[in-house]
């Protein structure tokens, strides 16, 4: 094999640059990757290609990465998510791009693509290609052309209402079949609505107009879609990229393409971000620089009065807008952190002394201002928050800092930031980093948990020993099976937990529902509160009866309640229920992943005996007869109605 010279520095330089500079480097980048691949370094070429997948690449460049990316580890393939794409319009280009974006995000996917226009037949016909594929996620890639009924212009309001209900019923049935037949999640496009209204401005007041009817259908979808349906917001794409591009009809007319060619990339990217949300891979943390990112100027130079912020200048207001955006993210549960090159006391001054700051120190779950390099600081933040660094987004106005982070910690997403702060919100938001398919009260207070955790750590430092610390927290737990009220949160936690997760088995809402209603299964959910606040639902256990043995299928716990006695409490509760099931033995299995090393010794620390292994997977057993004595904890168990038991 001839070895070709691969310029690693060029590859790195591509990886660390903003989109403007990357565009010029792309041809050389691509040809270097091809050399690398021809030289036998197929995996390495694929890794570079994955990191290059970006919303900023055009359609043709993304497709040119396809061959390089199509190198999966066989182990990864086994875990691949089975995604079906059912088009109204054609989906050929869309599927190519979806595959590329998912590869780029490290999500292995088997994709089934139906013939365009046949989405109803595929779903409703037993034995169809879709049926044989047994999808886990079904993306219904329809457009407003796939609406079966439209009102006549003269139809009465009542008639339109009835028609909309009938139309909705068809779609509900379609989703229901997908869900009941394969237990799959659904991604359903909203309808794209043309801005060229037949009745002009009056269209929106006339319920029988095409545009008004589509608006009504979108509202009905959002209001009536069950939790397993993610509603893909086409409207946000037509707004962001412009109706003139989205509705460019030429390629629909010639090739039945769903949108104009300029919109294919953002369309696929947007769908991929929902698939990632379903797979628990959305990002969770926004890390912010300070000087010239949250305010104008360098606070260490110009002082707290001299920074540019807020009313009085357009640019100053732009910084406030960006702060407001970050604040809104924090309020919905995205964690904020600071990573700034500064003296710590200077960095804190604006938060402490400027009343016009939107963000307060209490909004940040972690605040690092020092002179170390930002790659190290980001790693430090990840450690302190006990979160994977691949869940981080880093916003910094300084291109050199962005380049350093992209080079040294490529797992962190680092969006280009424009020179004008007025563009900061768009620069971050356009990447759809923080998609979610559900939202619960726990999400809203997630950021608070981390603050509370920091305070608990302070208390821990004061408490002379762990026992008295735990006792001082006055913890109360509520233990319940899976039920209608908690099933969304349970499914979310099962799919999001990576670290404290014994088996990393992912489940859809339907699967969790089936487990919860099967008498052979025990389901336990634990919610914990203490004197510092409510932690919400933080641990889940599923166990399956096999003869006189119970086998732990799933055990996950939120890392923020580690070492509080929840593990011991969970086991006590499980053992009690196993006995009630007439079982004498509890079996457990630990399936290692890259992320769950912290529970490798969990079962052994709880008194389980080793019972062999199957490759890396370890098997454990515990007798639950009389000799099991419950662990003592500092957690008081409440009955579901709030009374102590």
């Amino acid at each position, binding site marked *: 094999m001839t070895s070709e010279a691969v310029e690693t520095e060029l590859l790195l330089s591509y990886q660390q640059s903003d989109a403007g500079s990357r565009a010029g480097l792309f*041809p050389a980048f*691509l*040809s270097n990757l*091809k050399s690398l691949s021809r030289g036998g370094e197929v995996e390495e070429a694929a890794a570079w290609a994955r990191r290059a997948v970006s919303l900023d690449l*055009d*359609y*043709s*460049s993304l*497709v*040119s990465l396809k*061959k390089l990316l199509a190198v999966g580890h066989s182990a990864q393939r086994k875990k691949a998510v089975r995604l079906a794409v059912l088009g109204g319009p054609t989906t*050929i*280009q869309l599927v190519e791009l979806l595959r590329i974006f998912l590869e780029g995000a490290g999500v292995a996917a088997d994709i089934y693509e139906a013939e365009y226009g046949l989405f109803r037949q595929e779903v409703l016909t037993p034995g169809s290609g879709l049926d044989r594929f047994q999808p886990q996620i079904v993306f219904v890639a329809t457009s407003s052309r796939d609406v079966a009924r439209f009102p006549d212009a003269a139809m009465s309001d009542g008639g339109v209402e009835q028609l909309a209900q009938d139309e909705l019923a068809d779609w509900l049935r379609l989703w229901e079949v997908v869900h009941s037949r394969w237990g799959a999640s659904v991604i359903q496009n909203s309808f794209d609505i043309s801005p060229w209204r037949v009745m002009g401005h009056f269209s929106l007041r006339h319920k029988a107009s095409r545009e008004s009817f589509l608006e009504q259908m979108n509202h009905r979808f959002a209001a009536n879609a069950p939790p397993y349906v993610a509603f893909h917001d086409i409207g946000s794409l037509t707004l962001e990229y412009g109706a003139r591009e989205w509705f460019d*009809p*030429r*390629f629909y*007319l*010639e*090739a039945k*393409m769903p949108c104009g*060619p*300029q919109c*294919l990339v953002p369309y696929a990217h947007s769908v991929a971000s929902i698939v990632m949300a379903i797979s628990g891979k959305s990002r969770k943390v926004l890390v912010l620089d300070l000087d010239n990112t949250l305010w104008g100027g360098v606070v260490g130079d110009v002082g707290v009065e001299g920074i540019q912020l807020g009313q009085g200048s357009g640019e100053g207001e732009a910084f406030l807008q960006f702060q407001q955006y970050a604040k809104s993210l924090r309020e919905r549960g995205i964690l904020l952190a600071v990573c700034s090159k500064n003296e710590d006391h200077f960095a804190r001054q604006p938060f402490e002394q400027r009343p016009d700051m939107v963000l307060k120190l209490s909004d940040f779950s972690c605040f690092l201002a020092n002179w170390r390099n930002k790659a190290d600081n980001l790693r430090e933040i990840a450690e302190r928050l006990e979160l994977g660094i691949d869940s981080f987004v880093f916003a910094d106005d300084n291109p050199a800092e962005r380049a350093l982070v992209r080079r040294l910690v490529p797992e962190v997403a680092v969006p280009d930031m424009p020179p004008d702060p007025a563009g900061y919100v768009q620069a971050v938001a356009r990447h759809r980093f923080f998609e979610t398919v559900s939202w619960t009260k726990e999400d809203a207070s997630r950021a608070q948990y981390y603050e509370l955790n920091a305070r608990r750590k302070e208390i821990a430092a004061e408490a002379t020993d762990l026992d008295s610390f735990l006792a001082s927290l006055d913890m109360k737990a509520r233990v319940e099976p899976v039920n209608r009220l908690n099933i969304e949160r349970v499914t979310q936690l099962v799919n999001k937990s990576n670290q404290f997760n014994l088996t990393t088995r992912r489940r859809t809402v339907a699967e969790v529902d089936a487990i919860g209603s099967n008498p052979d299964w025990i389901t336990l959910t634990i919610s914990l509160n203490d004197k510092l606040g409510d932690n919400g639902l933080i641990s889940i256990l599923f166990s399956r009866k096999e003869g006189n043995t119970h086998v732990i299928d799933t055990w996950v716990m939120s890392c923020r309640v580690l070492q509080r006695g929840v593990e011991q409490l969970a086991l006590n509760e499980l053992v009690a229920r196993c006995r009630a099931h007439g079982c004498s033995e509890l079996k457990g299995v630990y399936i290692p992943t890259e992320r769950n090393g912290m529970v490798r010794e969990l079962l052994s620390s709880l008194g389980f005996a080793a019972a062999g292994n199957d490759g890396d997977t370890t098997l454990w057993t515990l007798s639950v007869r009389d000799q099991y004595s419950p662990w003592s904890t500092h957690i008081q168990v409440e009955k579901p109605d709030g009374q102590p038991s």
Partner: protein
Amino acid sequence: MDNLLSRLEEVFRLVFDDDALVLRDDMSAKDVEDWDSLQHINLVIAVEKRFSIRFATAEISRLKEPGQNIGSFRRLLEEKLTAKA
């Protein structure tokens, strides 16, 4: 080599993933490996993007029609670029 032809050649090389592809005016769709209907759409999208032009609906598939070749496609492209300037 004609500048436009060489820029067009770059686009073809990217789309057909063939760094050795050499474009000549007398070539047509059947002379290039893998030139199916999907690749054709990919090519038109790539050319529109590269040259910041838009083909009319009827022009999108013209290059695949009988009697058409790279030469006629290049002249169409020239017309569009002149009209734009």
